[in-house]
Each structure stands twice: as C-alpha cells, then as structure tokens.
C-alpha cells in the first residue's frame, strides 16, 4: 500500500513544479530582497534596521494581540453555532451554515465600510444610543475595531471546519458517553470537542494567520500600527525597493509557518482517527424548552451581527442619500440599473476566475493531502509546507512577484500571461490553496487507513480505492474546501488591484473597489456588492444541497 510507485512520483513532481513556479520563485524574490544589499550580497542590516524601529516592534506586538484576540472571539461565536446545528434538531440548520459563510464572500474593505455605517462614530447604533442615552460606543475604533470586524469576517473558518469535523465523528462515541451518564457541557467538553479538535485547530490556525496578515480591514479602519499595513505602506509609498517591507513579509512568513506547524504538531501527536464511519448515525438530539430558547436567542444574536454588514450594504445600495441618519432617507433602484448597464462582464469574470481557481485548488488539495497522509513519497511534507507559505504571503507582494517573474511571458491564445485572465486564476488558486488543503487534510485525517486497506485486501487497486473509497468519504471536506476557496477568491482585492491590466478583464471585487472610490459611486458599488453576496450565497447553499443529495450523512444540518 505504501510503496512509492511512478504515478505517485509523477503527480508529486507536477504539483511541486506548479508550486515552484507560482509560489516559491515569487516568494524567493521577496526573501532575497530582504537579505540582500545593493551589490546582491548577503546582509542582515535590514533586519537590524527593522528591530531598531520602535514603530515596528509596536506593530509586531499589536499584530499578535489582534490575531490572538480574534481567534478567541471567533471561537466563542463559532463553536456553539457548529455544535448546536450539527448535533441537535434544528430548523434551518443548512440556512444557518449558508448564512455563516456569507461574511467570507464580502471583501473585507466592503464589510468594514458597511459596518462603519452601522457601528461607526455616526453609525445607526451610535446615533440611537446618543439620542436615547447620550453616549456612544467606540466599536469601530482602533485595535478593538479591527478585532470586531475580523471576528465577524473570519469566524466562518472555524465554523466550516468544525462543522465538517463534527459531522464526521461517529455518534456512537457520544451515545456511549450518554449511556454512561454524561450529558450537556461535560459531554461536549470530554467527548465531542476533543474528537473534533482537528477541524477546530485547522480553522483557528487559519483565522490566526489570515488576521495576522490581513490588510484590507485595518486600512479601511485607518489602523496602521500593525505589521501588514506597515509592509503595504512601506512598499507602496516608499517604493518597491524598500527593504523593510520585505523584512516584514519575511516575519509574516516565519510566523505563519510557526502557527501552522504548531497546529500540525498538535494534531499529529494524538490519534484522532475513528474507525467506524459507516452505519446509521444516531438521530439528532433534542434540546429542552429552556435550552431551545437560549440556543435560538444566541443564534439569532450571532446571525444579526453576522448579517449586519450585509444589511448595511443592502441599505447603502438602495439609498439615495444616507448621511448622519439612522436609516437612509430616500430609496432608489437606480444603482442596480447602473451596475447592470456597466458591469455584467465583471460578474461573469468573477465566476470564471474563482470557479476555475477553486476547482484547481480542490484537485491539488486532494492530491497533496493524499500524498502527505497516505504515501511515503520522499519530500511530501515539503509540498504541505510550501502551500502553507502561500497563506502568509500578502497578496500584494505575491502579485508584485508575479508581475516581475512573468513579465514578457507569452501564452498561446491568451497573449502575455500577466495581461490575461489566466494570471487571476493562478494567483487566486495559489493563495486559496491552503484553505482547500486544510479542509482536505482534515477530511482525510478522519478516515482510518484500515478502510483503504480493506479495499486493497478485496482486490481494489490504489486508484480505484482513491476514486471509490477515499474521495467519496472526503467529499464533505472537498466541498468545504471548494466553497472556501471560491468565496474568498471572490472577495480578494489586493492582488486583484495589482493584476488588473484592463477593465474588461477585471472581476467584481475590482469593480466594487472602483465604484467605492467616488462619492456618487458608493451606491453602485454597494449594489454590485449585494449582487456578489446573493450570487455566491446561493452557490454555497446549492453546494450544501448537492452534498446532501449524494452523501446524506456527511452534511451537517441536512438530516431531517
């Protein structure tokens, strides 16, 4: 089973070549710049310069604080939500899961801008508070504003991964515990949560890393004392040659790798695999009447918060004038007309690029997960580590790396690579690959190898086993990976701005960004944002339905 055959080697090499060209080389350029002096020789001067700047030390501490707090807050939101909807009889659980993904599909800067209108200094909430009680809450100010927005934006990572993990746990474990008298919080703490830990850790480490190097949200909230904004400000205002910007990038990379390997080591040192996944899963439990009220109240509160940026965006897209009032004063549909007249091309581009990128991601993700967890291919861990690096790369820097590395490369049919749609697909696929890979890894880690061994004993070859046993069992994770890749790519902005060479090639997020840069354009920008949210929301919901139809047991919330 574990012998390395030529097919495996070929697949491994192909993936390695892809990652080498589109990830390692651009990243290497960045690292090289951080360590090289004017003559191209090795130097540590840039790092010592970095450590001598108090602003950099402060930014470093702030970044750690914001990322850590966001993980904590996101867990507080996501864990109860995942547990309640997967384990208990709940009306509309699928709806909750779909809605829970929504924050991810909204570009961070749009979400933050919409939340300013509701929670900002003169946002609806503060205007009401000020009228009624004479005080306001600084919800969107400083580091805590960033934590607030990031929590709402990134908690779906924990929710998605944890829900997939929970759904994969054999409920007989819980039944056994219940038979032995365990229930309620104790059952969750002792049995359910530890078994679902791979999913939780995967989600939490993702949140940490994304927040650690997120650019859009701090910039919209005008918080600059964080590492990623500092890197961006140095690179864009001082120039591409500024070494400190590259030093920060190297630090971001190092930290992300540390966080990832930490979570990896944690999952590895314990055995989470469960042997039996077949059989009939236990019926969903019922909550007591009080519990139901509490649970519903909690979910309603969370959903209200989660949907608030969307609500703000919807109101903005329908409003003619919205200034210093709780709600817009005049409503209009003209912004939608503007969008449909000018920007249908952008909507189509988003689907094309993000769909292809996500497809590429799950194919690569499944292949890499399999190579890493199920073969002894030499250097297989390296693939995983290479993908992890993609997470840590600010899109801006990777984008610059692409433009530099592939300048002048011509493709048949498409013309210059950097001026074609292909570059978007590649850029999105590379940076979203880690999400897909984490989902695929978590899904595969939960399948006990004995299932494959059994198939092997019954005479199935490796490919047949992968096709008939492994992939179907992983389907929940694969789809979660596809959806995560797709929706986050649709909201990506920093790479997109850099790589857009013509407006006719631009995807929706670029359009929203463009519109949002003008007073009269905020309405059309918001309208385009609403269309994006609706289209992708429907897509997500449909993919849940799809999995439900094919493998009912794998989908949280579809068991009625």
């Amino acid at each position: 089973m574990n012998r390395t055959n030529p097919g495996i080697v070929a697949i491994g090499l192909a993936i390695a070549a892809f990652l080498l060209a589109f990830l390692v080389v651009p990243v290497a350029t960045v690292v090289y710049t951080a360590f090289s002096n004017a003559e191209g020789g090795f130097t540590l001067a840039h790092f010592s310069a970095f450590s001598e700047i108090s602003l950099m030390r402060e930014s470093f501490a702030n970044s750690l604080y914001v990322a850590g707090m966001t993980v904590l807050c996101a867990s507080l939101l996501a864990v109860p939500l995942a547990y309640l909807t997967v384990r208990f009889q709940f009306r509309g659980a699928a709806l909750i899961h779909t809605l829970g993904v929504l924050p991810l599909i909204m570009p961070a800067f749009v979400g933050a801008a919409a939340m300013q209108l509701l929670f900002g200094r003169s946002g609806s909430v503060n205007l009401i508070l000020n009228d009624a009680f004479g005080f306001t809450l600084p919800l969107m100010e400083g580091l805590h504003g960033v934590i607030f927005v990031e929590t709402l934006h990134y908690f779906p990572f924990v929710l998605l991964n944890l829900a997939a993990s929970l759904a994969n746990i054999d409920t007989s474990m819980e039944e056994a515990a219940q038979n032995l008298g365990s229930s309620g919080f104790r059952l969750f703490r002792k049995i359910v949560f530890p078994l679902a830990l791979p999913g939780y850790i995967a989600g939490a480490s993702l949140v940490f890393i994304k927040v650690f190097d997120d650019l859009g949200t701090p910039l919209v909230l005008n918080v600059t004392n964080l590492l990623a904004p500092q890197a961006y400000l140095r690179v864009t205002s001082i120039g591409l040659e500024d070494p400190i910007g590259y030093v920060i990038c190297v630090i971001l990379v190092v930290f992300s790798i540390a966080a990832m390997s930490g979570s990896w080591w944690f999952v590895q040192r314990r055995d989470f695999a469960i042997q039996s996944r077949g059989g009939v899963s236990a019926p969903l439990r019922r909550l007591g009447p009080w519990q139901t009220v509490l649970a519903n109240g909690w979910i309603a509160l969370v959903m209200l918060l989660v949907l608030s940026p969307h609500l703000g965006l919807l109101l903005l897209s329908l409003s003619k004038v919205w200034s210093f009032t709780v709600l817009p004063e005049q409503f209009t549909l003209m912004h939608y007309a503007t969008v449909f007249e000018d920007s249908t091309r952008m909507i189509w581009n988003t689907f094309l690029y993000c769909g292809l990128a996500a497809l590429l991601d799950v194919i690569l993700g499944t292949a890499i997960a399999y190579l890493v967890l199920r073969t002894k291919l030499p250097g297989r861990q390296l693939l995983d580590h290479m993908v992890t690096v993609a997470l840590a790369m600010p899109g801006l820097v990777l984008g610059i790396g692409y433009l530099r590395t592939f300048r002048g490369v011509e493709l048949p049919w498409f013309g210059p690579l950097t001026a074609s749609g292909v570059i978007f697909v590649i850029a999105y696929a590379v940076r979203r690959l880690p999400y897909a890979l984490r989902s695929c890894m978590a899904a595969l880690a939960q399948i006990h190898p004995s299932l494959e061994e059994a198939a092997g004993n019954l005479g199935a070859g490796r490919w047949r086993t992968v096709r008939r046993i492994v992939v179907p069992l992983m389907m929940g994770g694969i789809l979660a990976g596809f959806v995560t890749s797709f929706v986050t790519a649709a909201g990506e902005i920093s790479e997109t701005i850099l790589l857009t060479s013509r407006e006719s090639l631009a995807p929706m997020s670029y359009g929203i960004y463009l519109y949002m840069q003008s007073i009269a354009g905020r309405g059309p920008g918001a309208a385009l944002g609403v269309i994006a949210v609706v289209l992708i929301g429907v897509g997500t919901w449909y993919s849940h339905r799809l999995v439900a139809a094919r493998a009912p047991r794998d989908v949280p919330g579809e068991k009625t």
Partner: protein
Amino acid sequence: MSLARLTLAAALLAPALGLADTVTVVTSFPKELTTAYKKAFEAKFPGDKLEILNKNTAAGIAYVREQQPGSRPEVFWASAPDAFEVLASGKLLQKVDSGNAAIPARVGAYPINDPEGLYKGQALAGYGIMWNTRYMAANKLPVPKEWADLAKPVYFGHVATSSPSRSGTTHLTVETILQGEGWMNGWAQLLAISGNCAAITERSFGVPDGVSNGQFGLGLVIDFFGLAAKNSGMPVEFIYPSMTAIVPANIALVAGAKSPEGGKRFIQFTLSEEGQMLLLQKDISRLPVMPAIYAKAPAGYPNPFSGAIQAKVNFDTELSESRYYVVVALYDQIVTFRHKELAAATKAVWEAEKRLAGKANPQLDEAKKLVFTPPVDDKQIADKALLALFKADKKDETASKQKAKVEEEWASKAKANYAKAVELANAVK
C-alpha cells in the same frame, strides 16, 4: 521612410476609415469621470475603444515604468504635477504639439501646461475644507473659513485628513500650507489640525466619504470631492480657504505606447470644448482649464480665472519635489503612526487652556511648544545632506540604515514630547 509616412497617413485617416485603435488610459480619477469620457469619446470616434486602467498615482507610475516600450498604455491622466515630473525625468512621456488655443498659458502665476510641452493641464484643482452640515448642527460647530480655524480647540475630534504618503492630493495640501505659512508655522498648524483629527484615513477618498456619511464633521479635501458630493445631494458644503493653491491636473502621452495616434486623439478630445464641458457634470464637478466654459456653468460654480478663489499661495513644484520624501516620512512618523499620542496631547493642551480661561501660563506654553514643534526645523530642512539621504537608492545599505535611524529619532522624540506635554498640561491648574 515611406513606410513611416504610410503609417502616419493611415493613422491620420484612421478615425475617418473607422480603423480600430485601443486607447489605454492610466488614471487615478473616479469612475464617474472616466465613464463619462469613455462614452463621449467612443461615440465621437466609433473606431476607437477606450480602456480605463484605474490606479493610484504612485502605482500608475510604477505600472507605466514596468511595461516594455511598444506595449505601454497611451495616456497618463492624474492630479499630482510631481507625478508627471517623475515620468518626464524617466523619459516616459512624449510631446504632444496640438492643443486648444482657447486654453490660457497660466492660471494666476502658475503655468497650465508643462513648459517642455510633455504634459498638459486638463482641469484645475484647489484644496479646501468640506463639512457635513447635519454633523455640524448636531455638534454645534461653527463654520470654518481658513485652515487656521481647524487648529482651534472647538474642532477637536471632528476633523479628518489623509496622510501625504498615501494620497498625492493630501501631499499637495500639506505642501501648500507649508509654503503658505512657512515651515515652522506650517507644521505648528498641521500638527494642531492633525491633533484635532478623529482619524488619519488611509485613502484620500476616506475623507470625503467619511464626511459625506457623517462619520467625520470636517475634512481636508481636493475641491471636486466636496463639490461632487454636494451636487449629488449630500448634506455637505465646501470652501476654498485663502491659503490655497490652484494647480492643474494633467494629461500626457506616454512614450513607447502601442497606438500613439489614438492617444493623441483622446488627449485632444479632453482639451476640446466638448471634453471640457464634461467636467461640469454634477457627479464630476471639476474646474475646466478653458475659461469660456465657465459661462455655461451653473450659477455659483467656482471660477479660478475670475479671482473668486483667492489662492494666495504660488505653488513651487520644484521645492515641493525636492523635499517630498522628507515631508511624507516626517508626517507619517510624527502624525500618522503616532496619532493616538498626538490626539491625547492635543486634548490635554486644549483642556488646560480651557481651565486657564485665557490666563498666560509658562507650563502651558511649554506643553504647546512640545506638541506643535516639528523635530526638523527650517534650517535642517534646507540641508542638502538630509534631502539627499531620503532620495538615496533604497538598496544602499548605509543610507537606508541611516534613514531608519533618523526616522526613529523623529518618532521617539515625538512620542516623548507628546507624553511630556500631557504631563505638563494636566499639571496646569
């Protein structure tokens, strides 16, 4: 040569023959403006296709630089005159001879077109103050007239500005104040205004956006942001303070473009009466460079040729360019990245002033001096070595180390001064 002549003839005939040219325009202007020009231009020249490439000014320069000759975009179109100087010194611009004879050579004392003929003024822009009337009424704030007003205690926490390192137009505003008031006074004013700010926004558009939706009361903006918001029905007003400068926003043909003839056609179009008229559209609201257009403008439209805008400052582009890197780095080190501390110190000073109710107090004077004095004085800013250090090659190790050291000195001095000022001001009884 006959081939060249043939190409020329073909290019000249192109619009008549309906030969297709794609004209790519790199610009930092908002979508309303570019869409209006795209529609009008394509209607007039059905053979041409206009591709808009929206980038902020700095990114636009980098983009033009990185393209190979022959595949570069045709036209560069942006506000900051410095940007065109940078492109010109990089030999990236090509002279355009034709123009519009109805456009004068100067506005005030400032030349509208580049003396070398490499770029042309396409619209005019002044800098001013924009405010939200509802916000002002709700917070009972007086209407400001001058930049100096924004440095008053009453506006604490109500103002917004962007950072000059992030926005070319904010840099022009800062430089205008520095040139108008002189280096030391200018910084004292800038520090007080920034101390009064609720936020130093990352994008220049963050200011008009925040003022329009009522997040901030007042903001420092380029005129068309204020005028377009007002004309789109937002409850905002805009004024030019007397200490402002009127500077052209320019358009230029990029050297080594794919279809220079198409580019010339577009530039010509933007300078024609038809192109200038588009600037008056409500959601664009920019100032045309062709004086005759103002006769067709709605009543009350600001006219820089009539003397309605005072514009006391004669903007010195050379001076601005020579110290650009020092000014933006200094602003970031002592304001943008230390804004929390600066605002706290400003607040402490205003509160002490209020407690004293007009009485003189040496401790308060000391505190004010600490907060409102820049770490670089007027002698140091004239120092060629300092200017050269900030312009040095970024890969030069010793220079970048030394630069980092200088910046660190500014930052730590500012931080210490702000803390000391809070202490002193709070001790004032």
